[in-house]
């Protein structure tokens, strides 16, 4: 999957309240959420962003809340990919789960500015800044993550596993063997 879009550049620690303020979380309809995407740090963003544009940001993008509304709003507003130096843990999971492409690449972030044109080859992790002519290679995904993405996200992946009987056995809760690793049962009732 390859896309070309304009850069929207932000700094470090872009939090989930900045991506979608909590006051709009009384609905979960993606189109409603996307109207307010990045509203508190960039009121012009949601109205001006074009399909395939790229958010470029510093460290710890998406820190704060677990709200999946954040990557949903970004995806629905038309952003094709988020490139950041690093992502907050929950945001990273959420983005992969819902199929919002994200890449970690500090070097690409450093030299990109709002308005630059980026070409992103998501699967190969290749980023080309068409404005400066420079090429970058993003951090690669672990194979499991590629499998999730290839399946179309966590729900589709899990559906496939359910259909093919590849789900783990249900543990007998309350009787789990937790003694083989030094655990010590203190109470059983």
């Amino acid at each position, binding site marked *: 999957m390859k896309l070309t879009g304009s850069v929207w550049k932000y700094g470090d620690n872009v939090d989930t309240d900045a991506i979608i303020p909590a006051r709009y979380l009384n609905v979960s309809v993606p189109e409603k959420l996307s109207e307010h995407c990045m509203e508190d*740090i960039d009121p012009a963003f949601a109205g001006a962003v074009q399909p395939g544009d790229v958010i470029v940001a510093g460290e710890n993008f998406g820190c704060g809340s677990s709200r999946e509304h954040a990557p949903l709003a970004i995806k629905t507003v038309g952003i094709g990919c988020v490139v950041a130096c690093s992502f907050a843990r929950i945001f990273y999971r959420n983005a992969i789960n819902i199929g919002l492409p994200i890449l970690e690449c500090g070097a690409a972030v450093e030299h990109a500015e709002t308005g630059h044109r980026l070409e992103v080859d998501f699967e190969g992790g290749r980023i080309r800044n068409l404005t400066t002519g420079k090429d970058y290679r993003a951090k690669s995904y672990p194979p499991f993550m590629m499998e999730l993405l290839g399946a179309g996200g966590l729900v589709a992946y*899990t559906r496939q596993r359910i259909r093919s009987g590849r789900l783990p056995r249900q543990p007998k809760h309350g009787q789990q063997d937790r003694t083989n690793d030094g655990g010590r049962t203190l109470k059983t009732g």
Partner: protein
Amino acid sequence: MTHTLAEKILAAHVAEVAGASVAARMPEVRPGGLVEVSVDLVLANDITGPIAIREFENLGVKRVFDPTRVVFVADHFAPNKDIQSAEQCRDLRRFARAQGLCYHFDVGRMGIEHVLLPEQGLVGPGDLVVGADSHTCTYGAVGAFATGMGSTDIAVAMGTGHIWMRVPETVRIVYEGQLRPWVGGKDLILYTIGQIGVSGAVYRAIEFAGPVIDTLSMDGRFTMANMAIEAGAKAGLFAVDSTTLAYVDGRTTRPYCAYQADPGATYVRVIEIDASQIEPQVAFPHLPENVRPVSQVGDVQIDQAVIGSCTNGRLEDLRVAARVLQGQHVHPDVRCIVFPGSQQVYLDALREGIVELIVEAGAAVSTPTCGPCLGGHMGVLAAGERAVSTTNRNFRGRMGHPDSEVYLAGPAVAAASAIAGRIVEPQEVVA
């Protein structure tokens, strides 16, 4: 091979999978490895639940994996703040009824989820808990591995009882010395976040340890574990000791298992903190890492003081606030709002006479809700307004208008500031 507390709990939950599976390929519980684990409890609230229900319905399973282990709490915009919020709470209620969930907490019987679940004995030592709320890490206080996730992850956990996890490296933070007067769990964790930063523990687990932790109350531990996420951590854990056991015994609804980190376990980083040097802390806007000792705050006038939340809404917090507010009056320019974390905390505070002291001082006491913490309702700030708050986040616009400000502190500083009208040290208003 030695293991940290987080690694031991994850190892005890690694799923058994037949055939060519994720777990078969990646069975090893070592930092950085991916494992599939069974979960003991799955949580969602009125904000994250509706999306989790939608994704659950896309999964192709009819029933949740265990109706005693999927918990819904309507707490964020409850009591319903508007029609849309009412509909989100209604969607939770309908799903809970259709699925026969044993634990669905609604207004009048509820609490702020992370105060409520341990209090109701739904979380115990050694549990693996996932919740569609970032502050799910609070349960690390009872020696559980608990972490926040998004709604889609929670939908899969609701449907299958399993979830994938990356095994985190562990940071051990050791607190030496003795606590000064008016210093509590909130000050320790704010100081720590000030030291390591809001991304200081991203993807990592934190183990809190040391003599100061050994003598810290459960309520203080909940406060610290709650804010592990504000350093980016996946979980914040405490070893199970006699304080934990005194709290969970007679309370937990399920068998539990206490784990200890192995002596000589490998930590990615060990941080030693001399707690004797720590005075009450205040985090300035707009990040929890912008921490200063209260003596160096300067002149910060406030419009609102919020005392409560999943961070500081427990009985001990209200006791501290009442001790400061007792016989005093909230400054005429300040609205002071106190949110007990659960119906039980509210009732206990009533019976102790704490609520009376707080109301007599001119503060409002609310039913439990997350409301003001995330700028939802019950204390939203106007442009240019400032609040001192015992909550956990002070991001721009967190409590209302993007041009409002939130200063994070513990209940002693928040209550003292409510009286003074500006952020002050507790001893300035308490004789």
